[in-house]
């Protein structure tokens, strides 16, 4: 089998499409659209290929490609993907493809629009797979800059004048105008970039100035004082893009003014770059600094969640409502990140994915409504479900995901974040999260009612055709993703979880874990439980008694009293994370099959650090006695080396 350099393909496809777009004459509108769609679709296919080829058993960074750029400064175009990258690539591929589909009918300077849009996306894709700090930053800037032009040229201005004593403020700054929005967004993000640049340079030089390789820089033990002042720079620098309070104010104006596809991309993917940067650069490369600042990060995130939701509730402009809801939901991402727990980080990455899809759907829908109704003013709408049932349906799906209804992707993410918060040192962080979700329920349902339900539509809206063709396609893809990843979260959670575990062990060995539960009782026979945990996509898991289990009735499974189970006490020196991955049902005869069952990155850690007699202990059913609640504290240091890089293609 020939392995293609999938990461390069994924990242380069939009770039190449941009180049192809340039010579097309302005009159060939269909050709331009098709080229743009092709570029986006190739990225999506690439992302799917990465999803497919990423080996879950092996874990760590995979599909690596290295192309030296400036060897003297140690700058290399290092591309590799981990479990997080896989899910975020997938998200970006979905959003850009649907984004192009949703703006299919754009009527003004299509070529420039699509060229800028695709350039932006190439930057986003690059950030998620870059393993070189310089390249990371380069891609980041590529992703941020085209936004100015995209909003200032193709954006829309809010035409509803604000009344009241503060009218002059609106006039003075032209608030609601697209130029104002574009300017504010760009300036704020660039100030953030300046912070990041300082931090990157500081890390580069503190590490000896030899290389920008993130795995090298990440394993460096920086001076605690240095970390303490670098982390806020990274947090606020990237955090500005992630909408961290109080640096989120570019977001409502920016998203409200931006054209449909740009809002979709910006809220759907770009804001995730910010949060990704905070976690990837800030928390993972400056762990002690992060530990020091984490209370502040968490509190600010909690403010984000509630404050964003409350602000959204008071808005009357449809786009502002969605934009503020993004601020609130990105707060959930940051809250999850700040918990420094397995659940919190899983949830944060999952929320990036879920919110990306959901907000992409929302902005696509809002764009549709705006295009037809020529207004974003909610109080003037009503009864749109009559003429546009499809739009109403998808808006409801998006809304239900937004308020965290189980069965939609939003729930999975929020639930894990809340769980992580509850486990963390600041358990109360879970409360603002739950309050935020509740407020979201109020305003989202109110929007659905005000826009789509009730009598109407009034006579001023005489022509409201429903979603058609490519628009419909975009809605279906996004809506289906919300449901699919809500119903079966392990489709990407199986990628995220082991990756989180490896990273988290590195930065916070004392992160709390859930008490271990012997699983053999619960899983309808040994079938499911005896399967290795991380071996495949998860869908292929047998749904019933597995091999070696007699088919038919199993007397009273799941109801066996815990106390009746045999179980030697857990050896307290066991490495962290060993226990959870080891269902007791694996024990008999499982020894050869154990390796795949272990979390990725465990294997190297085990060999040198394992106490003698460990292996037999693991081969026996390892479980807690009924009285033992909390996990024994880890006695061994966490995995000393990061997961190995497995090159599969590209130039070495």
């Amino acid at each position, binding site marked *: 089998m020939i392995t293609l350099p999938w990461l390069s393909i994924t990242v380069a496809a939009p770039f190449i499409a941009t180049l192809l777009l340039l010579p097309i004459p302005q009159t060939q509108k269909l050709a331009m659209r098709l080229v743009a769609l092709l570029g986006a679709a190739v990225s999506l296919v690439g992302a799917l290929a990465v999803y497919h080829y990423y080996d879950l058993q092996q874990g760590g960074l995979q599909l690596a490609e290295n192309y030296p750029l400036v060897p003297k400064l140690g700058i290399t175009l290092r591309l590799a993907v981990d479990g997080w990258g896989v899910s975020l690539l997938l998200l970006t591929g979905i959003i850009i493809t649907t984004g192009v589909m949703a703006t299919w009918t754009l009527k003004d300077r299509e070529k420039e629009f699509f060229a800028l849009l695709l350039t932006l996306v190439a930057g986003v894709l690059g950030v998620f797979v870059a393993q070189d700090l310089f390249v990371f930053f380069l891609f980041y800037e590529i992703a941020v800059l085209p936004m100015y032009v995209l909003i200032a040229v193709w954006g829309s201005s809010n035409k509803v004048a604000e009344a009241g004593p503060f009218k002059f*403020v609106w006039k003075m700054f032209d608030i609601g105008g697209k130029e104002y929005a574009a300017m504010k967004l760009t300036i704020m993000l660039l100030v953030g970039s300046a912070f990041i640049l300082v931090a990157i340079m500081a890390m580069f030089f503190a590490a000896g100035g030899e290389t920008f390789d993130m795995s090298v820089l990440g394993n460096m033990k920086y001076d605690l004082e240095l970390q303490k002042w670098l982390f806020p720079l990274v947090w606020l620098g990237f955090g500005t893009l992630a909408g961290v309070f109080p640096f989120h104010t570019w977001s409502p104006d920016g998203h409200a003014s931006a054209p449909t596809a740009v809002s979709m991309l910006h809220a759907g993917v770009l804001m995730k770059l910010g949060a990704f940067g905070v976690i990837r650069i800030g928390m993972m490369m400056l762990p002690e600094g992060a530990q020091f600042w984490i209370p502040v990060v968490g509190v600010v995130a909690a403010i984000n969640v509630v404050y964003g939701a409350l602000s959204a*509730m008071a808005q009357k402009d449809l786009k502002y409502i969605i934009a503020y809801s993004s601020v609130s939901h990105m707060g959930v991402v940051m809250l999850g990140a700040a918990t420094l727990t397995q659940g919190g980080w899983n949830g944060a990455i999952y929320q990036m994915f879920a919110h990306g899809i959901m907000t992409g759907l929302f902005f696509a829908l809002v764009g549709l409504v705006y295009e037809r109704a020529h207004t974003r003013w909610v109080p003037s709408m009503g009864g749109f479900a*009559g003429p546009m049932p499809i739009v109403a349906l998808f808006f409801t799906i998006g809304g239900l995901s937004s308020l965290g209804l189980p069965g939609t992707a939003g729930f999975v993410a929020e639930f894990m974040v809340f769980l992580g918060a509850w486990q963390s040192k600041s358990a109360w962080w879970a409360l603002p999260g739950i309050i935020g979700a509740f407020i979201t329920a109020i305003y989202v349902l109110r929007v659905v009612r005000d826009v789509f339900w009730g009598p109407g539509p009034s006579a001023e809206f005489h022509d409201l055709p429903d979603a058609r063709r490519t628009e419909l396609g975009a809605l279906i893809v996004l809506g289906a993703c919300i449901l699919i990843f809500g119903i079966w979260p*392990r489709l990407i959670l199986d990628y995220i979880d082991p990756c989180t575990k490896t990273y988290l062990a590195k930065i916070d060995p004392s992160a709390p874990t859930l008490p271990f539960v012997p699983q053999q009782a619960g899983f309808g026979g040994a079938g499911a439980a005896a399967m290795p*945990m991380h071996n495949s996509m998860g869908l292929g898991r047998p*749904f019933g008694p597995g091999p070696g289990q007699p088919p038919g009735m199993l007397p009273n499974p799941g109801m066996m009293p815990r106390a009746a189970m045999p179980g030697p006490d857990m050896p307290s020196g066991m490495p962290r994370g060993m226990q959870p991955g080891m269902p007791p049902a694996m024990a008999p005869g499982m020894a050869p099959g154990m390796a795949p069952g272990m979390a990725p990155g465990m294997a190297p850690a085990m060999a040198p650090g394992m106490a003698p007699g460990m292996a037999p202990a693991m081969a026996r059913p390892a479980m807690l006695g009924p009285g033992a609640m909390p996990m024994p504290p880890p006695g061994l240091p966490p995995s000393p080396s990061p997961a190995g890089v497995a090159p599969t293609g590209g130039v070495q």
Partner: protein
Amino acid sequence: MSPLLMAALATLAIPAGMTLLFGVVPMLRRTGKPAAILSILAATTVLGIAGWLFATWLGNPTESLQIATYWLTMGGQPLGQVGVHLDGISVSMLLVVATVAWCVQLFSLGYLSDEPPNGLGRYFTYQSLFLFSMNLLVLAPDLMQLFIGWELVGATSYLLIGFWYPKPAAAKAAIKAFVVTKFADSGLILGLMVLAVASGGFAWDAPITPATAEIVAGLLFVAVMGKSAQFPLHIWLPDAMQGPTPVSALLHAATMVAAGVYLIVRADPIFSAAVHVREFMTYLGAFTALFAAIIATVQTDIKKVLAYSTCSQLGYMISGLGAGSLLGGYFHLTTHAFFKALLFLAAGAVIHAVHSNEFTDMGGLFKKLKFVAIAFIFGSLSLAGVPGLAGFYSKDLILEAVHESGNHFALFALLLTAGLTAFYMTRTVVKTFLGQMSHSAEHAHGPGPSMTLPLLVLLVPTIALGWAAGPFATLFGKPYEFHMGLVGYTAIALGLGGIALGYLVYGLGALAFLPRLFKPVATLANSSVMDELWQSVYEIGGQTPSRAAAWTDRYIVDGLMNFIGWLTIVLGQQLRKLQTGDVQDYLYAVFGAAALLALFGGWR
């Protein structure tokens, strides 16, 4: 895989497949009637399977089967199970749900015959989704899946209450129902988190300390209060009557609102360890039962009477569970599901005939709608606890349990409720079916066969289920022995007395002072005090901070950014003046600077 498990999975897959089919093939959905028939066929299959499973379990009551896989992972550890769990409890609940759902779907075919095909298709899509969600809840192997089903039935309830979405009242009621229950569900999320952190999973029988059990049970009970409409979170249920009447029968009387009770039965290992929570349950349930029964005596809308009656009966169940009678609470859930669904569907037939919910548009309908009237009267008698009918047996179990628990307040309130229930149901029967015929009742038309058949089916358990209490109890592994104590005789006396009194007052017009006596209490209870209270909580806790946040964001936070921008511009404009463009000015500056430097150097 065991065929039983396969069949159980089919009860999930069939309605889910229907929903998906209607969702992705709009052409089919928009045909209306064919889609409805397809959905009813699916419900019939589910009913058949549920019946078969139930029959199997009657033969082998202690059997317990499970097939599940995990839904989430947390650091490689499986978390949360999805699949099906079959035991006496889930199998019997499945049969209840399937029966009522089948009856309601069939009934809807007649009830919504005036609906345009598009709307009918949408309605049956929601119905299929509900059946799936409810089965998911019932068959849950642990609390995680129960929660998923729990929220999904809530969402379906939102969609079905808002089925006539152009009607502002329906839109408002839908949101209210969703938001109130969602608010309560925060308790369930928190409970799940506490449980997971304490035990590493969501098992019913998770090994947790009694103190933790109190916390978890307390949090779970908050959600139960929302879903099962217990005071003070009952406010959404009466409004939910804006939905089509069959929906009220299925969701807001028989199954969905009973999910709270089902949760307590399922999570019994947690609840039985939580002594204080259970004591609170006994009090709150009894209070809600009495409170709602009082309100029901003054309603003029037939659906509202039944809605408050549902609140009241759910209070009964909760109180019984609190007193420790698992069987009593659960058996009352079962009998109530049947007779309340019967009452609602019969009321639906009446409403369909006279096109109104109000008593003033009814009266004397016995002549026009004989079968409906008989069904309704039997339902009422069962609800009133007339000996021999199903409601009597289940109610008696609860009363005995509360009596044994020694909670005098609860016992007194529940007994009083028993009398009141008989009273208001008699009033309803009299106002609907007896007495003077109103104008619209003159033109009433009888229901079609698709509406009478479900009534007939539901009539059977309404009458006879009480006699099957023995076999039913074996599904629980609990002994059941019928015996009448003092409490039982009191309840019978109160029930019969209530009926007699109701007939005296409303049928014969005697004792006219009595309704007047009731009036002040009921007016107070019936007024929108609770609604207004919650409304002001919402305004103070939601609207005001929301406006404050939006204002702060625009003028303070954003104002700060704008101020920085403005400052930059102003400073730039001022500094620009330094660049005059005159060579002389620049030379002055150069020489001046040189002189200053020289001075500075000399001074040092």
